[in-house]
């Protein structure tokens, strides 16, 4: 077992560098260790700056470390599956199966059941998919897996749309965002307000032992949550916000910055829950206005042509509701680095 790291303080304010060199060896990331497994090896075909590739690499290497390298991974159809396994190449250096778009949780259940039948409880099952594969088409199988409390860690890499098929709206697409099926045209451009699913909270309603959200901006936190998830048995859910430069219309270099802004605005609350109760929240020291986040992405560009302050206000209200619901803002919080413009 890896010890659960205590929250890391960063002294390089204004920089997003993780700064492993400054940490004690036992606080460094799995990824910083040359003995990491490289579960998702280099050479795959993700776009430059793909948040999903980054998130999956950290999650899987950490899960491998936490299980003595005994992970079997199941992948839903989607970018992660496609960019990692164009025949005859595979970037996966762990036991990995892709079956269908909507059945990854059920395939994972089957593997876990097989391992139980064979008395191989040392083998751990991690299933993963995009937001479409998770909140929409795979929702039934995911809910079934949760409800039965099958011994599976499910990881959703949320890039807020169906990216692999060309950026169409999913049930996780935020309001006002332009996608190929919610074009920025007509009287209410972009994705409608009042729709969509909050899967972490739905997962919590299943009262499974562990639910957490994370972003690729704080990879220490992502690893720590993966470790904690692996320490539980039964159904567990990890929802990781992974910016997609292509789908969001953002610069590749902004992937980490956008993930951090999503958290710092309150639009994407970062928390952990056990047995349906929130047990920890990643605080925001200085709440950033949502406009900072929106203006860096072309999927919101229509909001800045003409007067759409009312729409921006509505999005701000959504962020503020999260701030209230989870108690996100804490000016005394020392763990959150201050955000400065670069």
């Amino acid at each position, binding site marked *: 077992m890896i010890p659960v790291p205590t929250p890391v303080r960063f002294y390089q304010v204004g920089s997003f560098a993780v700064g492993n060199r400054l940490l004690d060896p036992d606080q460094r990331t799995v990824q910083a260790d040359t003995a990491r497994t490289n579960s998702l090896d280099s050479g795959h075909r993700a776009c430059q700056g793909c948040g999903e590739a980054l998130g999956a690499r950290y999650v899987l290497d950490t899960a491998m470390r936490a299980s003595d*390298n*005994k*992970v*079997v991974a*199941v*992948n839903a159809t989607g970018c992660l*599956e*496609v960019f990692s*396994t*164009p*025949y*005859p190449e*595979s970037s*996966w*250096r*762990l*036991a*990995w*199966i*892709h*079956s*269908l778009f*909507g*059945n990854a949780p*059920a*395939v*994972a*259940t*089957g*593997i*876990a*059941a*097989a*391992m*139980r*039948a*064979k*008395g191989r409880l040392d*083998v751990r099952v991690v299933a993963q998919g995009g937001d479409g594969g998770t909140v929409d088409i795979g929702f*039934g*199988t995911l*809910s*079934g897996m949760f*409800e*039965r409390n099958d011994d599976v860690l499910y990881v959703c890499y949320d890039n807020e749309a169906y990216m692999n098929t060309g950026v169409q709206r999913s049930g996780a697409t935020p309001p006002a965002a332009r996608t190929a099926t919610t074009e920025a045209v007509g009287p209410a451009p972009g994705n409608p307000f009042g729709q969509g699913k909050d899967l972490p909270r739905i997962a919590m309603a299943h009262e499974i032992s562990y639910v957490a959200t994370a972003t690729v901006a704080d990879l220490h936190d992502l690893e720590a949550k993966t470790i904690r998830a692996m320490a539980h048995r039964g159904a567990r859910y990890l929802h990781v916000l992974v910016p997609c430069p292509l789908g969001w219309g953002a610069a590749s270099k902004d992937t980490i910055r956008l993930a951090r802004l999503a958290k710092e605005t309150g639009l994407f609350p970062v928390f952990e829950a056990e047995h349906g109760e929130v047990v920890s929240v990643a605080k925001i020291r200085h709440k950033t206005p949502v406009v900072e986040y929106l203006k860096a992405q072309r999927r919101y560009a229509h909001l800045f042509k003409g007067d759409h302050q009312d729409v921006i206000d509505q999005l701000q209200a959504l962020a503020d509701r999260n701030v209230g619901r989870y108690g996100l803002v804490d000016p005394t919080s020392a763990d959150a680095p201050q955000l400065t413009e670069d």
Partner: protein
Amino acid sequence: MRRQLEGSRAVAEAVARCRPEVVCAYPISPQTHIIEAIGAMVRTGAIERCEFVNVESEFAAMSVSIGASAAGARAYTATASQGLLYMAEAVYNAAGLGLPIVMTLANRALGAPINIWNDHSDAMSVRDSGWIQLFAEDNQEAVDLHIQAFRLAEELSLPVMVCMDGFILTHAMEEVDLPSQAQVDDFLPPYSPRQVLDPADPLSIGAMVGPEAYTEVRYLAHLRQLDALEAIPRIGTEFAAAFGRDSGGLVHPYRTEGADTVLVAMGSVLGTIKDVVDDQRDVGIPVGVVGITAFRPFPFAAVRAACQGAERIVVVEKAFSLGFGGVLSSDVTMAGAAPHHLVHSVIAGLGGRPITKAAIASLIERARRGEVGSLSFLDLDEDLIAGELARMAAERRSGPVAENLLRDLASAPHRSRETGRA
């Protein structure tokens, strides 16, 4: 041991003796009794080292089976009708991945209109999926085919669907010879997978394949189906040697020597047809019947050989392709078993309509007089159809067809089914 058992119970006991490691269950009539019985046996420990998973849909049932099988476990599930359609995407996937899952299909009609009774439409809907499809004639054969199915599936690394007629077989009490655990253990070795998800020897299963190799992957899957044409009779012969009775194989010819007319069918209707054949042979009429056990892969050569010398072939089939005609008869035609125009497709027993001895006898008589066309429907109620066609011609908003027909039937009780039409 010979016991008087319900078909579902007999199949459940047979599957239990095959030592499944993961069994998925989602209820749909007429499959329910099978999975209920297996569930109870897992709970009591009668089936050891087995996980019984109550899933939320048939799509999950097949998907869990996929995961279990890929992880090296012997996986079994059962479904019927709408359940098979609901899992269709995963059915294709299991075959494409080459996973030796065994599934019972308790054959049932497809909706709409919703109908829980027997026909073979469900099996036909996935005939191109890459599953081996075997049809049981009676409950003894259903038991035996399940035991053979695990051998076959695991030897070839292909999934096998054992089709048994819903209600007619699943719910029928019959005497069945259930093999002992020791006999099955001798016949069925532990599952040794061709590919397995093993952290100690990691591999990727289910990668994307483009135009450069997709055809070759499919071709190899076809070759494995052709291998099954050799494996099915071989395993059937071994089974006969071990268990002392003939079951399985590709086709079952019955009294076809010197027959001018050969009927072809699958499943439980073969019992009725054999009775009629016996009656007709008793009065010197040269008819025979060929039962097809292996529908996929389709045994062209065996069908051709079994029908050799017949002047005409009458395929009695419990499914058809709308806008096309008989599916089985089209395969029989392809087998070149008789000149094309002498293969007659007779659609019968849809949605549970009884196929009576009288109707089969009359069919044979008419066929031998040259009065049966290339496609016909046994016991079709022409009046009922004429009534609805007239209604549709008379008014645009004529309403839902099924409900109209039921109303017509209710208001004309003298035409109820029980009165029996030829």
